[in-house]
């Protein structure tokens, strides 16, 4: 009944030992990935990037700001001089929360009078928004109780009133936040895989051998392979965004044309990645394995699922090396925050620069492998 069991075990063990690349993928990669992603997977949001517009600047107002900072949830990264500056920084995604303390704050507090603090919250990331909302309310409550404990009369309302205003995604719909990011991640994975498969298949089926003895130029071959996939990528992007808008009802606040422009840069970078993967892989299975190495960071480190602010610095920089990071920022910027070209151009520039470097390295390696 168990005839041949040990023979098969022996043979299978040999297979595994003979193939060090797969062994490496099996043993080392999971540990590395768990370590990196373990730090990234964190929904307990701290250090939310916060901007401050303090029109009071006296001791009482500074005490209030300290309470925000000491809570550990807010990290003051920008100081604004006026409301326009704050609005721009919110739209660009530089800060997620804006605290606006009015000039009369200290006066009112000293007189035990009611005062409003405006808290602007970027609703495009619903997890961050919810956290910011809860914590700022709690801070307001505590400050009010502290004041009330000094007075004898009980006022009809809390003296320090946090007035949160959720911008961009006022209903804090999770779909509005997740689906644009999902579009970015899906597009990256699918286009990269398709491109690398198409090239690796020529190696696998040995058709490249016949092709290299023809006078086809290296560039003709490479660009000729990429252009049809650029077409496929454009159609895919359009259909994914169409579904996002009409099936999932995510409104596009900004310019569709601008979105198309940045998507073009993203496609260019992604095709380059596909080409790069194909120069490392000898067959489609290897291409798939290598793509998985890029797939997980795209999901976990790009800010698609978990806010990048919470990640430890090293992990954060890993995230900055994933093209999807920048495209997701662009998508959320245009779709949710109505960001314009000048709000997002640096993301596009980094994406484009990455694309050029990747394509350069890929074409260099490609030339060597087909020669």
């Amino acid at each position, binding site marked *: 009944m168990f005839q041949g069991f040990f023979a098969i075990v022996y043979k299978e063990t040999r297979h595994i030992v003979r193939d060090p690349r797969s062994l490496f993928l099996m043993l080392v990669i999971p540990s590395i990935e768990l370590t990196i992603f373990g730090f990234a997977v964190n929904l307990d949001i701290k250090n939310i990037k916060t901007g401050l517009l303090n029109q009071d600047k006296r001791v009482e107002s500074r005490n209030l700001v300290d309470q925000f900072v000491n809570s550990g949830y807010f990290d003051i990264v920008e100081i604004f001089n006026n409301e326009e500056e704050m609005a721009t920084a919110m739209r660009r995604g530089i800060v997620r929360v804006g605290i606006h303390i009015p000039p009369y704050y200290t006066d009112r507090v000293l007189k035990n009078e009611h005062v409003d603090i405006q808290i602007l919250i970027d609703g495009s990331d619903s997890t961050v928004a919810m956290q910011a909302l809860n914590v700022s309310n709690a801070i307001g409550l505590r400050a009010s109780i502290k004041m009330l404990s000094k007075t004898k009369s009980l006022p009809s309302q809390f003296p320090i009133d946090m007035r949160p205003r959720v911008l961009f995604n006022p209903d804090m719909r999770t779909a509005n936040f997740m689906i644009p990011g999902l579009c970015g991640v899906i597009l990256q994975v699918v286009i990269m895989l398709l491109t690398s498969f198409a090239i690796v298949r020529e190696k696998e*089926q*040995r*058709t*490249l*051998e016949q092709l*290299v*003895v023809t*006078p086809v130029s290296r560039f003709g071959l490479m660009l000729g392979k990429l252009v049809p996939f650029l077409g496929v990528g454009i159609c895919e992007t359009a259909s994914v965004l169409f579904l996002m808008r009409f099936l999932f009802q995510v409104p596009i606040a900004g310019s569709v044309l601008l979105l198309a422009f940045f998507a073009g840069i993203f496609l260019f970078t992604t095709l380059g990645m596909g080409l790069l993967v194909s120069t490392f892989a000898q067959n489609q299975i290897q291409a798939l394995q290598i793509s998985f190495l890029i797939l997980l960071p795209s999901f976990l480190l790009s800010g698609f699922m978990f806010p990048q602010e919470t990640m430890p610095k090293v992990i954060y920089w890993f995230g900055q090396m994933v093209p999807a990071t920048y495209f997701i920022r662009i998508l959320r910027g245009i779709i949710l925050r109505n960001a314009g070209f000048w709000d997002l151009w640096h993301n596009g520039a980094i994406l484009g620069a990455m694309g050029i470097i990747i394509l350069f390295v890929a074409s260099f390696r490609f030339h060597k492998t087909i020669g």
Partner: protein
Amino acid sequence: MSLNILQVENNHIFKQVHAPVIQVNELTRKFGSYTAVDRVSLVVRERDIFGFLGPNGSGKTTLIRMLCGILRPTSGEAKVMGYDVVYESEEVKKSIGYMSQQFSLYSDLTVLENINFYARIYGIPRRQRKERIDEVINIVEIKPYLNQLSGSLSGGWKQRLALACALVHNPKLLFLDEPTAGIDPVARRDLWNLLFDLSARGTTFFVTTHYMDEAERCSHLGYIYFSKLIAYGSPEELKKMPQVMPEGYVRYELRIDRLTEAMRELLKMPFVKDATMFSDVIHIHIQQGSEEELQHSIAKKGFFVESLRLVPPTLEDVFVTLTRSFGK
């Protein structure tokens, strides 16, 4: 280095002197410390069917890859269709056709689409393309299968399609790397007849093969062994080589019972220089005039001789002998 010396040396080999299309001089390729092709020199002339033979791993494919301009030689030089394989590799590629060992066309494209693709890759102008495609379709007679996916063709038809693709730009020189490996005998014969047709029309062939009957059909042969070209000439010339047919020796075909035992005994006899076993016969090399002694010795050992006849050496004899003597 001058190619002239080589030509002078080999002039006696070629009776009808056509213009050379491949000139190889001391061509060497090393992979690290391993030498895959070791100082090979040869000339292939117009209309030759040059058969290139040798065991697997002896350097056949490496040499072809260098001649096609896709692998740089470590040293030495080669001219193909008058172009240097290193400095004018693009010109070389334009003027030759190449058919590889395994089927390496697109199996998810139809026969016509594959031919059309290669016509475009070779840059045949649009106006001539249609005409040229029709021509190669007629040459390889693949018309009934034009709209079939090439992956679904049988081995023989796949090779015909590959030949059509290699011929589409009308090259005067074709490299065929084991074109008949793995196809059935009838398809093999048909393919060779096709090659003869093309040869008669002026195409030159550089063919690698393991089949001796195919080697017999070639006008010239080269035999590469352990990276070195150890025999080179027409089949007749090779059979007359002194190492194969030493002065004073004759070759007999011996039909005998208990072949393996007989073989062992024969090799012990002093007048037998060499013996090679085939499926049901033994070829022996014996000193001229020792026939009687041979029959006598065999009878004494109790073997039954069915027949004994004088035979010219076959190509297989040639290569077996050469391989052995090279080993010593």
